[in-house]
């Protein structure tokens, strides 16, 4: 998997002080890009320090477009550990058709600080999109997503929020790689 052009290289700049660094969690995208790692930027320079931030991204491959469908177990993804106090909730919206699913995903990620982890083509025209994040954020984002896809045709089938998903569920959250039939 190639490194996206906008991702900064691992070349080190040891002159950057730790207090000048801004640590941010890059949201997972549905475009299959390896964006599940920490993005570190300097306020004084665009160069980055030498970190392990790209090590996990290399193992992510995604045939379905769901960014959670890589080899790395989600529980090991540091991108989800933004707030241990808030936990990592799971939000899912199932829609009838792809358009409401995309509309829902767009609304969810705009409404709150959540990561879009997968888009799954269930079959029979049903599509599921999943987000993860802090419990309150997931709650708000799923409501917004349901609102959005409810407006698009006959889109909303079901929505579900799990405040504390068990770790055993996490492998099931990876996309299956299902593709549309041509």
């Amino acid at each position: 998997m190639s490194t996206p052009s906008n991702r900064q290289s691992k070349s080190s700049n040891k002159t950057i002080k730790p207090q000048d660094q801004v640590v941010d969690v890059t949201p997972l995208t549905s475009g299959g890009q390896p964006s599940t790692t920490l993005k570190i930027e300097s306020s004084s320079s665009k160069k980055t320090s030498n970190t392990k931030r790209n090590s996990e991204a290399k193992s992510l491959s995604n045939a379905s477009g769901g960014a959670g469908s890589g080899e790395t177990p989600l529980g090991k993804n540091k991108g989800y550990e933004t707030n241990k106090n808030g936990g990592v909730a799971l939000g899912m919206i199932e829609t009838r058709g792809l358009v409401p699913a995309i509309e829902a995903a767009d609304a969810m990620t705009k409404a709150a600080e959540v990561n879009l982890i997968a888009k799954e083509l269930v079959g029979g025209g049903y599509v599921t999109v999943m987000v993860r994040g802090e419990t309150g954020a997931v709650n708000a984002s799923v409501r917004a997503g349901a609102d959005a896809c409810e407006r698009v045709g006959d889109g909303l089938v079901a929505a579900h929020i799990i405040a504390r998903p068990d770790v055993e569920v996490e492998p099931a959250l990876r996309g299956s790689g299902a593709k549309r039939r041509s």
Partner: protein
Amino acid sequence: MEGWRQKNRPECLEKRFEFESYDKTRDFLDALGDFSEKVNRFPDISFGKTYANITIRPLEDIEKEEISNVDHEFATQIDLLIKK
């Protein structure tokens, strides 16, 4: 606490709320979201256009994870959201 069912495996309290329209479902979910933020406790929520299923699980930080009076009180508070 009318309509709530207590299950043992896994320990939880469940209730299905039915609504006439999506707008009313949404109003309830908004109220529930605000209430959850206020008390910093979030139930599992499953909803469609005209229904919402609420599942309350025991608090994680208590020694023995089972439904307690605190959970029943939380369920009662959720019932009150409908009446407001």
